[in-house]
C-alpha cells in the first residue's frame, strides 16, 4: 500500500529538484520553470494529504496554488518582456547593475 509518506517524499524530492533548478539556472525563463516545478511539488503534497485525511482543504489549496502560478507566469513574463527589450538578454549575469 502506498502511504502518505511516499507521496510526500516524492513531493519533497521534486521540491528539491526545483530548488536546485533555482540555484543553478542563470536564464530567467528557465528559472521560472524551476519555480513552477517547486509549486507543482507542493501540489502533490496537498493532494496527497487531502486524500489521506479525506479532506477537501488540501485540494482547495492546490487549486489556489495553480491560480497563483498562472498569475505569476503572466506577470513574470510581462516583466521578462520589458527586461528583454531593455537588456536584450535574460541572463542573470547581465542583470547586475545594482550591487553593494
Amino acid at each position: 500500500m502506498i502511504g502518505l509518506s511516499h507521496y510526500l517524499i516524492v513531493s519533497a524530492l521534486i521540491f528539491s529538484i526545483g530548488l536546485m533548478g533555482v540555484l543553478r539556472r542563470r536564464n530567467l525563463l528557465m528559472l521560472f520553470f524551476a519555480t513552477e516545478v517547486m509549486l507543482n511539488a507542493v501540489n502533490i503534497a496537498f493532494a496527497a494529504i487531502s486524500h489521506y485525511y479525506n479532506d477537501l482543504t488540501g485540494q482547495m489549496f492546490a487549486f489556489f496554488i495553480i491560480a497563483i502560478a498562472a498569475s505569476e507566469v503572466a506577470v513574470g513574463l510581462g516583466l521578462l518582456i520589458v527586461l528583454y527589450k531593455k537588456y536584450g538578454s535574460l541572463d542573470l549575469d547581465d542583470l547586475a547593475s545594482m550591487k553593494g
Partner: protein
Amino acid sequence: MYEAVAFYLFSVLTIGLFLITVMSKNVLYAMTSLAAGMILISGFFFILGADFLGVVQLIVYVGAIMALYSFAMMFFDATRDIKEKNTNPALVFLLGGLSALVLVLMFAAPIHSEAIQALYPMHEGVGNAQDVGIVLFTKYLVPFELAAVMLLVAMIAGIILAGKKMDQSLTEDMSADDEILIQKDEK
C-alpha cells in the same frame, strides 16, 4: 497494486522529467519535459481522487501556462542552447541534496494522524467536482474572488508591461527643463 505501479511509474517519470527541466541546456527540452511532468502530476491527482484538480492542472498548467511559456520562448528567441555560467555545482547539489534530505526526513515523520477529523470531508458517492464546488463557493468564496482579482491584476500587469507605452520612458527622458539644467551645469 495498480495504484502502486502507477505511483512508482509516475514518480520516477516525474522526477526524471523535472530533472531534465532543471538540467537541460535547451529551453525547448526543458519546457517539453516540464509540460510532460505536469501532465504526470495530474496523473497523481487522479490517483489521489482529486479529479477536479487533475483537470484544472491539465487545463491551466499544461494548457494555459505552457502556452504562455511557448509564446514567450518565441518572443525571446530562446530556441537555441542557452549558455549558462554555472555556479559552483557542488554548492547546488549540496544545497539541493541537503534540502531533499531534510524534507524527506520531515515527511518521513508520522505526519498522518488518524485522530484528525476532516473539516471539509469528501462525501461518499458524490463527484469530486461537486464536492470541490461546494467548498469552493462557500468556505473559499472570498479567496476565490480574491483569486479573480489577482488574475485581473496579473492581466493588467501583463498588458501594461508588455504594452507599447513602456517603450518610451518618461522617467529617463530628458524633457526641456532637464536640458536647461544641463546647460547650466556646463556653464
